[in-house]
């Protein structure tokens, strides 16, 4: 909301600079979002009347004007604009003037014709950001008037008003707050209040949506342009002048915060009533548009139908125009929720609806009406009816009790009763009962103060939080399961970073296509776009998008992981996913063979990460896209994730020319299956003994079967098995092309003694025999 500092000074004699005022208002909780300097404080620019205009002899686009600048002799000015007519008043920069942008005006010749100054546009005077042609001044402007008097310097504060403080939506309200924090007296306008007359039989209001409605008739007004002071005030807060009557209603809205509406009395048929719109009812508003009203919208209607949308906008047919002579001035309170509902439903927002939505002061209704009458009579003449018609009642003031001990406890500061009471008195509350528990009457403009907590907040605000001591203490806190989960995930992140993976964070919101591979997904009702319409059910699509982005950027090796939430119709979970592609090592001066990351790099990485054994990685028989080949990962017998290589189709789609490797874990399952080692293994005292065996097996025989078979023999002395060579020969030169050669190192050891060559050989032979018999492998001997 815009607040003019000059305007504020009508109510509080505050001489603070804008920046000081900003600091003060911040302390009060009123955020100053911007400070705007307006007006044209430029010397040697005056209003001038154009007396004649002739074509420039040497330039088609220029004219030569004679103007009256208030001095006895007319001046000759060469001008390029076309938007004026003889008789118009325009700003004239005289020689010696310096326009914004350090543009110095002097007498000079333009295409051979002398020009004694320059006629200006609004833009050249920095009165507008953009403008075309000369700024045409109001016809009543006297030639010679300095432009800085016509557009006095103004400082406008752009305020951000929190929704709890509707009283700040007016100059008087902001002035009151300045009064609270400076101690300066605040002078509110005090128009003469007319006696009230019951509007029974003349205006009806419903039980809901409106509890106070007033009308006052003013006859014989002369509608016309507003005087300059009124236009200036409205311009300062960003409003366009309409006519003197409408301008007054807007002025009072910005002055007191009470929205008003003036009806042309001649266009109202019969009696007025405030009622709910019936089904299908339509209404043409002041903005010239026809609105189909939602059933139940609160309207002001005469015998022919709606004449205003209550609290939102008046009707086109009943507004004040040049031909209006008698007006009905409405000042009322409409319920916030009723106004908000209609405003939202129609997408129709106004200064009036903004204030009603936040709530207006019912005590201000009659004052605002009287103030507007006073001003209308001043600027448009006419006679006001003696009485104001009132329907409904102004509610009684709220009363709130306050325990002073509670104030001290909640704020953590030993305030005296006097300090507490003085703070509340400063914000305008009236003490009803004294003691350690006081009772306060709340003025209408602060009626949001309803509870003890609200009063405590006021005490803190007025006193200032800087007076409150900082206390550094608190109880011990046991760690929670969420702490354990946090630490578990953080350790995984750190391990992966240590292994060379970079952590990514991708959006939870994905497209339906991205979610389609990973089972059922949860869809949003109101997504922002189709590509963010679902909640991810896997981290993989997001990581693949990140991978694609990096490939596009020319990255050679991409190792990413993400730890984050996934969603399905059954609930939410936390996952860890890894993607890997590209070159395994950067090429270096050391040489060495370069190769791409392959699936064994990733299975190796996840084995280390989760401390898995070789046999914990169990291939899936029927991999599901996007995986072309994958294996389930088991920790202590519980499935915790999956690892594999994505299909070439996915790789092609992303633009990866190297294998695309991927793993995804369920962190909750992982954490549940993980346990801490409680006993270390004994360190071997006796030397181990290794036997290498090499054999030729069918190409299709998985190493895992070899391993499982050896494990199943349960050789008591066998300590470890290590595959150290794997050889295939597609050309069939050394071994047949449908075979492969494997070499395995078997380590035997006893915790009690040094083994003899004989017993080691016997164990190795048993293993070989089993392999030969069960898996039909050939030993090369």
């Amino acid at each position, binding site marked *: 909301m815009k607040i003019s500092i000059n305007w504020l000074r009508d109510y509080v004699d505050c001489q603070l600079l804008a920046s000081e005022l900003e600091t003060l208002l911040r302390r009060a909780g009123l955020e100053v979002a911007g400070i705007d300097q307006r007006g044209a404080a430029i010397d040697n620019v005056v209003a001038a009347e154009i007396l004649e205009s002739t074509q420039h002899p040497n330039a088609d686009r220029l004219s030569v004007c004679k103007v009256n600048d208030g001095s006895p002799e007319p001046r000759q000015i060469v001008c390029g604009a076309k938007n004026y007519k003889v008789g118009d008043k325009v700003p004239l920069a005289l020689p010696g003037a310096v326009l914004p942008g350090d543009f110095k005006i002097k007498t000079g010749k333009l295409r051979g014709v002398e020009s004694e100054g320059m006629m200006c546009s609004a833009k050249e005077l920095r009165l507008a950001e953009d403008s075309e042609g000369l700024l045409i001044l109001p016809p009543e402007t006297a030639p010679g008037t300095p432009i800085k008097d016509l557009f006095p310097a103004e400082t406008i504060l752009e305020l951000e008003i929190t929704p709890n403080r509707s009283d700040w939506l007016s100059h008087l309200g902001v002035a009151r707050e300045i009064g609270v924090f400076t101690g300066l007296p605040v002078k509110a306008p005090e128009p003469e209040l007319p006696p009230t007359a019951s509007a029974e039989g003349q205006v009806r209001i419903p039980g809901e949506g409106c509890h106070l409605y007033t009308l006052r008739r003013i006859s014989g007004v002369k509608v016309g342009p507003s005087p300059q002071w009124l236009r200036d005030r409205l311009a300062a807060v960003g409003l366009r002048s309409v006519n003197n009557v409408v301008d007054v209603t807007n002025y009072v809205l910005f002055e007191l915060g009470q929205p008003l509406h003036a009806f042309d009395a001649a266009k109202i048929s019969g009696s007025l009533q405030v009622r709910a719109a019936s089904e299908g009812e339509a209404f043409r508003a002041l903005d010239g548009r026809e609105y189909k009203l939602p059933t139940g919208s609160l309207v002001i209607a005469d015998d022919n139908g709606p004449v205003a949308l209550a609290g939102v906008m008046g009707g086109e047919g009943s507004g004040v125009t040049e031909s209006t002579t008698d007006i009905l001035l409405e000042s009322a309170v409409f319920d916030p929720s009723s106004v908000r509902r209609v405003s939202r439903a129609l997408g129709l927002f106004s200064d009036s609806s903004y204030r009603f939505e936040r709530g207006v002061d019912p005590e201000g209704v009659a004052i605002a009406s009287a103030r507007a009458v006073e001003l209308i009579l001043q600027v448009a003449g006419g006679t006001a009816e003696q009485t104001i018609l009132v329907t409904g009642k102004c509610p009684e003031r709220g009363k709130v009790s306050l325990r002073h001990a509670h104030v001290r406890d909640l704020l953590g500061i030993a305030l005296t009763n006097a300090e507490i009471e003085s703070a509340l008195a400063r914000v305008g509350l009236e003490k009803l009962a004294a003691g350690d528990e006081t009772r306060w009457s709340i003025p209408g403009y602060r009626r949001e103060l309803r509870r003890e907590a609200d009063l405590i907040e006021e005490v803190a605000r007025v006193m200032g939080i800087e007076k409150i001591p900082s*206390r550094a203490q608190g109880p011990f806190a046991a760690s929670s399961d969420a702490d354990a989960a946090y630490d578990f995930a953080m350790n995984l992140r750190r391990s992966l970073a240590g292994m060379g993976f970079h952590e990514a964070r991708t959006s939870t919101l994905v497209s339906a296509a991205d979610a389609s591979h990973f089972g059922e997904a949860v869809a949003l009702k109101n997504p922002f776009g189709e590509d963010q319409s679902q909640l991810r059910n896997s981290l993989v699509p997001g990581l693949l998008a990140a991978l694609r982005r990096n490939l596009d950027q020319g990255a050679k090796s991409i190792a990413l992981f993400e730890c984050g939430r996934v969603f399905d119709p059954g609930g939410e979970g936390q996952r860890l996913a890894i993607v890997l592609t590209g070159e395994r090592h950067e090429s270096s001066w050391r040489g060495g063979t370069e190769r791409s990351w392959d699936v064994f790099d990733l299975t190796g990485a996840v084995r280390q990460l989760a401390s898995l054994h070789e046999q914990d990685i169990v291939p899936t028989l029927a991999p599901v896209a996007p995986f072309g080949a994958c294996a389930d990962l088991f920790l202590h017998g519980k499935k915790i994730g999956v690892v594999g290589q994505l299909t070439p189709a996915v790789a092609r789609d992303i633009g990866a020319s190297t294998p695309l490797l991927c793993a995804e874990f369920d962190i909750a399952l992982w954490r549940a299956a993980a346990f801490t080692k409680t006993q270390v293994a004994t360190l071997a005292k006796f030397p181990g003994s290794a036997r290498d065996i090499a054999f030729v097996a069918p190409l299709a025989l998985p190493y895992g079967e070899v391993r499982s078979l050896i494990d199943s023999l349960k050789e008591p002395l066998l300590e470890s098995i290590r595959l150290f060579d794997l050889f295939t020969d597609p050309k069939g030169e050394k071994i047949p092309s449908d075979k492969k050669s494997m070499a395995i190192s078997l380590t035997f050891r006893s915790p009690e003694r040094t083994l003899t060559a004989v017993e080691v050989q016997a164990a190795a032979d048993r293993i070989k025999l089993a392999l030969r018999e069960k898996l039909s492998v050939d030993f090369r001997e």
Partner: protein
Amino acid sequence: MQQQADALRSEALELIASAHDAASLEAARLKYLGKSGAVTALSEGMRHVPKEERPVIGKLLNDLRAAVTTALEDSQKRLLEAADLAAFASLDLTLPGIFPSPGTLHPLTQLMDRAVRCFRRMGFAIADGPDIETEWHCFDALNTPPDHPARNEQDTFYLPDGRLLRSHTSSVQVRVMETTPPPVRIIAPGSAYRRDEVDATHLAQFTQMEGLYVAEKVSLADLKGTLEFFFRELFGAGTDIQFRPHFFPFTEPSYEIDIRTEALGGEWMELAGCGMVDPAVFEAICERRGDRVYDPEKVSGFAFGFGLERLAMNLSRIPDIRMLVENDLRFLKQF
């Protein structure tokens, strides 16, 4: 004999001293101390020495052997040391090292972890709640009126079943109080969502850290002390902190916290919201729990929340918020 030995000694020592590598030194050793070496040969002559001269000659020969042996050892040591030096002389330490580079943690993770560690130091435990929330947890219980603008479908993502994506992590306060009796002292890092168009300063999903402390007699002084400590831990003892009155439906009084510190560029920056838990929130919890352990007459508390993205952006002068979710390695590798 004496002359012979002296001559042999000086000849041997000279040759040994001039040995320039292991091979020539070994040749010298063989020449004098080998089976058919000169010193060995001279020792053979002992047999012909008269008995009474043997002790003198024997000592002479022993001294000769010892001198040659010592010279050999010295030379060997000299050659080794020279070789060692030579080995280092050819080592070019300016060649680029080749150990694989480690990965990185995302800047938001690093920042969040710093914050978590700091609050843990003050005795806060972590709490957690779902991203998909009920309206009750996200709004109703937090004293947000039914027609509050934040609840509208323009601003908040809804699911067809009426649930929503939490618009702030404050819903975790409600989750915690719903299930845990006071005292509670928790922080809740997590995602929140707003139906914003994504641009240089907005994401539809962002990261927040929420905090709540409820016990008997918790005061605004505790809130101030806690958050001042936190921000000075995070940004340094010289950090300026300002509490500015504000409005949130679920706290009263409410404040926004402005921070000014060199780490954030030396300008005042609005960073966090906080306040004393509104009694209406406690009443909503009591009603849901069916007991009065959160009776606002018995307990009080403070709550706070702040976003991590803007903080990370200011800490590292990140010009566009989208860089935090684009996962460009050229960006990630800088952290």
